């Protein structure tokens, strides 16, 4: 048996659980954002800014972003180990994904807290 070294959790079952938990968080967040946009009709800057000034919206958004980090890592790890055979190319692709997702989280914190 190959001992996976680059997956998210310690083993496949942990990856499976992380994938499901983050999927539920992302589904709820997606429905929340789309629902808000549909229900509020024409969005104004003042209203939009006020929404994202609420602590719970910021925390919920950060939670969604951290879920993207874990969810996308598990997903892209699965896809890359299936389709990219040369180890170095696969490693570089996974490195690229990891860096990109990390940048998203840092950028998201900056956007959400207006730093």
């Amino acid at each position, binding site marked *: 048996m190959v001992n996976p070294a680059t997956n998210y959790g310690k083993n496949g079952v942990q990856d499976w659980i992380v994938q*499901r938990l983050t*999927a*539920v968080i992302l*589904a709820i967040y*997606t429905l929340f954002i789309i629902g808000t946009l*549909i229900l509020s009709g024409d969005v104004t*800057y003042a209203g*939009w*800014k006020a929404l*994202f000034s609420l602590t719970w919206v910021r925390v919920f958004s950060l939670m969604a972003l951290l879920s*993207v980090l874990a969810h*996308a890592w598990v*997903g*892209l790890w699965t*896809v890359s180990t299936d389709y990219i055979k040369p180890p170095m190319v696969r490693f570089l692709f996974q490195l690229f*994904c990891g860096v*990109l*997702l990390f940048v*998203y989280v840092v*950028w*998201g914190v900056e*956007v959400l807290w*207006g730093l």
Partner: protein
Amino acid sequence: MKRDNRPVNLDLTQFSFPLPAITSILHRITGVILLFGVGFLLWGLDQSLESQQSFDALISLLDGFLAKLIVWGILAALLYHLVAGFKHLFMDLGIGETLEGGQTGAKVVLVVAVVLILAAGVWVW
């Protein structure tokens, strides 16, 4: 161990893919698209929150055809990935795990996703 006699057929163009295989590969493709889609959405959120000026600039940018097409594309990938993801969660609960259930599930995913993607297109334009 001699493996020379094993039949090998990895020419993907020769396979006839069952519907669940197609919905599965679409789930993967939309997932990869969303890796980059999230970047666009974050940029949009950044512009929408920075100032009244950047908010107005974003709104007028979203009037353009190309911008609408990109937004629709990201929404399409998101909606498909979401619907296919729900099917996974249902199957985890033991719903639709049979061969017949899997085929029905794949059809339901495609129909629901197409309806939602068309609705998203109407919403964007």
